[in-house]
């Protein structure tokens, strides 16, 4: 009950900011339109399929969910620095109420964002079928990596620093190293090795495989994302608990 009240407050707090609303729901659609236009301008003999809608749509679904790190981190950091969180720490709310209360709205927003992105991708030629639902669920699952990242940095940094780390830095890293905007296979070498070590490329692949309905190679990609998610969430929970107990993180 307390967790749901807090989650409801958090989703209101985020969605009532028009900038957040644009980045959560509008920005992936802008990219979808722009990159589809670019795709239509690429001649078939170039054999570049990365901006084809079946590849582009899952990439943008993942890229949209990266902003959850920014939203979760900024909200937590502002709550912390404005003493709003201190007020709530004196209430009967538990650590679980707080963590779930911050996480749940991000999952709801990711589901809404991925649904809109993939449905609009239908207008650009993406097949909308039962696999679309699997892809949305997979996007919600992989978004936990970014929610955890936001909660971790939101627990230790002020909102300006969170904006830098979870906004500028993370969105760029996730964008470039996920294969959404540049052809990883074409570049190959050390760059491809780095993308294989990090979770971003695997998040896109997990969503893309879910969308294709051919689940045979899903587990290996999902496993990498899950390991990173568990690690970052564990760190976030440890740091948050220390803050809640008045200790220095």
């Amino acid at each position: 009950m307390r967790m749901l009240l807090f989650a409801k407050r958090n989703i209101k707090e985020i969605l009532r900011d028009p900038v957040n609303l644009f980045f959560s729901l509008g920005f992936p659609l802008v990219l979808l339109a722009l990159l589809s236009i670019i795709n239509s301008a690429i001649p078939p003999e170039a054999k570049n399929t990365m901006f084809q809608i079946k590849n582009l749509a899952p990439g943008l679904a993942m890229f949209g969910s990266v902003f959850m790190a920014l939203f979760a981190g900024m909200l937590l950091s502002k709550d912390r620095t404005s003493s709003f969180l201190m007020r709530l720490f004196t209430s009967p709310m538990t650590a679980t109420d707080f963590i779930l209360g911050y996480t749940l709205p991000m999952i709801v927003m990711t589901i809404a964002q991925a649904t809109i992105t993939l449905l609009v991708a239908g207008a650009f030629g993406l097949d909308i079928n039962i696999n679309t639902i699997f892809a949305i669920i997979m996007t919600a699952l992989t978004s936990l990596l970014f929610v955890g990242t936001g909660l971790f940095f939101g627990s230790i940094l002020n909102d300006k620093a969170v904006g830098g780390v979870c906004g500028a830095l993370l969105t760029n890293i996730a964008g470039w190293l996920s294969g959404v905007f540049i052809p990883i296979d074409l570049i190959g070498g050390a760059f491809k090795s780095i993308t294989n070590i990090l979770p971003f490329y695997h998040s896109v692949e997990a969503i893309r495989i879910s969308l294709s309905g051919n689940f045979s190679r899903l587990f290996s990609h999902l496993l990498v994302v899950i390991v990173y998610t568990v690690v970052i969430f564990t760190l976030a929970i440890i740091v948050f608990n220390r803050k809640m107990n008045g200790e220095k993180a």
Partner: protein
Amino acid sequence: MNAIIIKELTKKYGSVVAVNNLNLIIEQGELFALLGVNGAGKTTTIKMLSCLIKPTSGDALLLDDSIISNPHAIKEKTNISPQETAVAANLSVLENLELIAGIYGQDSKTANKNAYEIAQKFGLESELNKKAKNLSGGMQRRLSIAMALISEPQILFLDEPTLGLDVLARRELWASIKSLKGKVTIILTTHYMDEVENLSDRVGIMAKGQLTAVGTMTELTTQTGTSKLEDAFVMLSGGVL
């Protein structure tokens, strides 16, 4: 009856002793002003009593519950208005009040009823649908205190509640705080001596983490041979008149 019994309460941060062996008893319904210069240990004391931080040693009983062994029970019956205005910026006044009421276990109907009642008491009834971030500083401060009271706490911590307010807003807040006297046990920290004179039943003075004096204003001025509380405070805080 005793509302708060503090026994040898100590908080250390490494080698720094923020609060040192504090002993104090506060009666139910009493408004107790905790004074001290910056860094004297007032806020650390309030943070320990409101279960925000754990003491290094010692204990305190709030309405018979220990801050060490039963903090959850204490959290149910206390509330705090922090030094900074702690409100949810993008929520309306009504939503802020209902949120806190709900977190303290009130059902939505009761929370809504109590929100309207407390808004009226604090002169916020015409601002109910306004976002908290669009309120003036004084109104935000009122909302912050109203949020602390909507849970109907038996013990209330007010940490510099009128900091940064203009004279009129301060006077209005004083009236609201005065109306709670006798019903709610209040620990108030402040740097304004006129606030202490107007509101408090007893005063405790902290210096370098220790409670150097406790008593009524008359007792403190008599003890120091001064005529004003401010002079008594300066002497008991280690200052020079």
